[in-house]
């Protein structure tokens, strides 16, 4: 037990917790946002289907879903840009 307590003194729990939290928010969050973007683009009717075509089929176009999809994808790009800027800030 004393070894466990002594070794835990070397652990920066605060930083590890922050990494886990931001990892979940930025990492898993970005993946969720990107997935939502794909869903929105898919239902928008503007994306090519499995046959690679959108024309010639009775596809109902949904501009709102298209905008929503683009916003989601831009949100992911925004998260990435913040990450890159973080490097600059650190430097």
């Amino acid at each position, binding site marked *: 037990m004393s070894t466990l307590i002594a070794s835990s003194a070397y652990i920066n729990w605060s930083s590890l917790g922050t990494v886990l939290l931001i990892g979940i928010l930025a990492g898993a969050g970005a*993946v969720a946002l990107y997935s939502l973007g794909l869903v929105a683009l898919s239902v928008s009717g503007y994306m090519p289907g499995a046959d690679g075509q959108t024309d010639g089929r009775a596809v109902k176009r949904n501009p709102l879903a298209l905008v929503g999809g683009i916003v989601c994808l831009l949100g992911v790009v925004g998260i990435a840009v913040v990450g890159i800027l973080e490097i600059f800030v650190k430097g």
Partner: protein
Amino acid sequence: MNSSSTLVLIIVVIVGLGFDFTNGFHDAANAMATSIATGALKPRVAVAISAAANLIGAFLSLAVAATIAKGIVNQDTVTIEVVFAGLAGGVAWNVATWYFSIPSSSSHALLGGVIGATMIHAGASAVIWSGVASKVFIPALFAPTIACAVAALATWLAYRISRSVDEQTNKTGFRWGQIGTATLVSLSHGTNDAQKTMGILTLALVANGTISSDATTPMWVVIACALAISAGTYIGGWRIIRTLGKGLIEIESPQGFAAEATSAAVILTSSHLGLPLSTTQVCAGSVVGAGLGRAEPVRWGVFGQMALTWMVTLPAAAMVGALTYAVVNAIGSTAGVIVMSLVLAAFCGVLYMLSRRSPVDPSNVNAEWDAHGGLSHEPQLAA
């Protein structure tokens, strides 16, 4: 400064750039293994993008360069021979683990080499053991665990949310995402790892009296290190790329995207907080998490080999560093450095020649992972 010390410095710089080169081809897998495995990028294109991102990343910040070995050993005891021996330990371990196709931390190998050499040079008291525990061993435990947990959640979310999307859109969309996140991982790798060699070479220049201790990293060091890590990345450590991309799980593009996004988030956050997590361990943990997030079988035997290697990286590199320093010290500085650099070159050459017996290259990097753990005749630590 006499001609013999200049010769030693030149050799140290060459070995340092050699370490940076091995770091590049060793860690190319971290960013690009999943993109290559899912077919998001062709192998050569993937390593070219990664090399370019590493090159740019190396110029983004010099914050890490000043911190290498800080808090690990008493820097007042570091001599140019210690730096040489430390680099030798790092290079030897990187090349050996590459031969056995195992991803391992280049930074831990470098630190191990420096620790071993310092122990012979100035005794165990010159090593800051609390720093070793808090900067090497404990992060080695938590890095893959955190990455695994986050990647598992991210993968579960990716499949759950996108289940209504048709397969082709799904595959294409996530492949594009993979390219972006893999590039981000490469960028952060260039920022972190190239600077570690910049830091160690700056330390050698200070120890040799070439520059003052308060001088900034010379621009030629920055450019040389950036080019070395970038060239190493472009060469592509195909053996390790194969292990990370095909060995742990049968990965699909949503999993690859989730793994790389997680790696990028965890590496950048830990880097910002000054928490020294290994890129290799984070990326491997993310790939395992991507498998668990889809309740897919993980090849725990392969992961076990990796984990064991991570645990022995520091002591093994320390032994090489210690042995190198002892020989250099016994023969004499200049002659010793020349002899040991030739021994190191021969060691690397032999392993390279042996690796040609079972080459892994862009043509077979994505071949099916067989029951015996990879390609036939591929060297393995365990069956």
